């Protein structure tokens, strides 16, 4: 039994080492994705392109525009003469927001408590027109609503003592990349593990190797174990690439023990590989196996908590997320890498993945018959 599994492992490794494209993908997928996500994804929006309609053109209005620009939230790219023109610019996508300052700006300013320092009958001094379809842009502009006006009034900015003090553990500078890198482990391992294994078995069938193999004494479980074992190795290579590149390039802290990380990754790799095996027993062609992989991959990216907080999702979506191995690994990897948790702190997720693997192996070997009909 071990001899036959080993035979399949050796064969698979030899084939893998000759498949330069796949070999390159194993290294390049994590590196390129890490670069893309690490540099590109940033949830704190800065320097949004904005427009300005300034009907007042007073000294105060120019000071106000300067103060808004100084926040770095927006860059005023264009000036428009009327609101209609500005609205058209938003529709065209030229600017994301427009600041409208009316001709009566100075009068509004002197009555405004933030400017005058005392409470009169008050109205806002200006208006933001925002492309609200992008919620991130809209909420960023909303943060300007309570902008202090003391500086324009020529006073020192007076700071109100906060109601609460917030201490940000684990990521004090609030860099998104710190949260992304451990999450990216889950996304990339899902993608490569599920895709490679599902394609690996379907390929044997498509190229006619299976018809010979199933007349030999090799058993379905032996064939499957032999086929997925090399990919465990591949998974650990990718794990090492992502963690070390994340640590070196993006200064992502690795607080947890490497043994805990390895154990969690092992559980997740096994769960993903068996998922790939189950797909391979359903798909008839490599194209189908690829499509099914994408079907698994998209929710793994969107629902697992990689992009959006799990807690913010509706309960139904949480149930779907709970069924995906990526969700459990996302929790584990972030807990271990960022918060120095132990696997024993994450028993539920660990046990869930062990259960998933056993069930997957069972389903796959039951579905894989050594028959053609």
């Amino acid at each position, binding site marked *: 039994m071990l001899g036959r599994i080993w035979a399949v492992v050796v064969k698979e490794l030899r084939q893998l080492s000759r498949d330069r494209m796949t070999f390159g993908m194993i290294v390049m997928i994590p590196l390129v994705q890490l670069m893309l996500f690490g540099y590109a994804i940033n949830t704190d929006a800065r320097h949004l392109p904005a427009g300005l309609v300034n009907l007042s053109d007073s000294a105060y209005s120019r000071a106000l525009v300067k103060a808004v620009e100084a926040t770095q939230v927006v860059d005023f790219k264009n000036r428009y003469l009327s609101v209609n023109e500005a609205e058209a610019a938003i529709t065209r996508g030229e600017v994301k927001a427009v600041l409208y300052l009316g001709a009566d700006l100075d009068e509004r300013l002197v009555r405004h408590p933030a400017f005058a320092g005392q409470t009169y009958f008050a109205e806002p001094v200006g208006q933001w027109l925002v492309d609200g379809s992008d919620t991130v842009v809209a909420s960023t502009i909303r943060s300007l609503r309570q902008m202090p006006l003391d500086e324009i009034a020529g006073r020192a900015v007076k700071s109100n003592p906060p109601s609460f003090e917030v201490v940000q553990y684990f990521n004090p500078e609030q860099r998104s990349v710190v949260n992304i890198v451990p999450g990216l482990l889950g996304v990339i391992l899902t993608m490569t593990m599920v895709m490679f294994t599902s394609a690996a078995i379907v390929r044997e069938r498509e190229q*006619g*190797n299976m*018809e*010979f193999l199933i*007349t030999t004494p090799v058993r379905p479980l032996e064939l499957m174990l032999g086929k997925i074992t090399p990919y465990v190795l591949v998974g650990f290579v990718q794990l090492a690439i992502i963690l070390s590149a994340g640590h070196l390039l993006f200064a992502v802290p690795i607080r947890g023990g490497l043994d805990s990380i390895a154990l969690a990754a092992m559980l997740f790799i096994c769960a993903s590989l068996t998922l790939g095996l189950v797909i391979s027993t359903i798909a008839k062609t490599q194209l189908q196996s690829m499509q099914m992989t994408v079907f698994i991959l998209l929710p793994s990216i969107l629902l697992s908590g990689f992009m959006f907080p799990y807690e913010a999702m509706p309960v139904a979506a949480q149930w779907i997320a709970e069924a995906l191995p990526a969700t459990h690994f996302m929790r584990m990897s972030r807990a271990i890498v960022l918060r120095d948790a132990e696997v024993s702190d994450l028993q539920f997720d660990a046990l869930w993945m062990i259960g998933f693997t056993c069930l997957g192996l069972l389903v796959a070997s039951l579905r894989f018959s050594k028959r053609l009909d």
Partner: protein
Amino acid sequence: MSAQQASAGGTVAGTSAAETSTAASEFAIETRGMTRAFGGINAVENLDLAIPKGTIYGFLGPNGCGKSTSIRMLTGLLSPTSGDIRVLGETLPGAEEKLRRRIGYMTQKFSLYDNLSVRENLEFVAQIYGLNRRQTKARLAELLSLYDLAGREKQMAGSMSGGQKQRLALAAATLHHPELLFLDEPTSAVDPENRREFWERLFDLCAQGTTILVSTHYMDEAERCHGLAILERGIKRADGSPQQLMAAMGARVIEVSGEDLRKLKQSLISDANVLSAAQIGSRLRVLVQSSIADPLAWLSPRVAGRALTEVRPSLEDVFVTCTGGRAQLAPPNGSQATIVETQDAR
């Protein structure tokens, strides 16, 4: 477990089934009423086979006649819709795993790995069959020289010619010394020279006691078999040795030579007593129903003075007479060969 032990174990298992011992000693394959339907259409219909051990038996027929389906049922890859199958004394379906070590299968399409070398492919197969390192080395050396692959051990299987691939596939299929070898159209991608060589190897295996079942659509290959079944649309049309089949053929063969044979062919073929007329070079080969007592006399007024000679039938003539809906009942001549009636006659 070594291959020797494995095959020894298989033999013990085969003979210990007491009630089958006589059948097991005589026939490698026995089927009765073997039928396989795909979506309501019978790919193989009521196939009865009795293939003696130590012979080369052929399935002859056009593409889609049920050759591959039959082989897949006999190797346990497909289960029959109905009918009984006994292979090497074991009943199928049910004893597939037991039979794996005793049968070899060479698929129609090359089924080894293109991106592994000759040696790596064979090593893989040897490991799957449980040979140890020393046995593997010895067996590989033997196979490489036997199948003329020495010096190519490091070549990738994908870069080899059709003939080399086929020899490699045969080496892989016979690596574990199977008692019964299935070959599904083994020479479809091979030139005549290599085909001759290949058949020499098959007779070597047969001489060592291996039973071989080979499917083909080449007449010259079919003619080399000890026994032969002609299949058409899943139905066995004829069964016997090539000589028996030729002797039992329900037609006589007359060759006509002369001018303007195309036109002559058209006029002859319209007669119901003419089973077929095929031009071969400057001669027209005419198959006349054996119910005509003197075919030469019958034919001469119909050929406008062209020269006539009666010749010995070939296997192709047998094939033509018993396929294509014009099959004829063999005259009762005491031979074992049978030619099955047409569908209309049934």
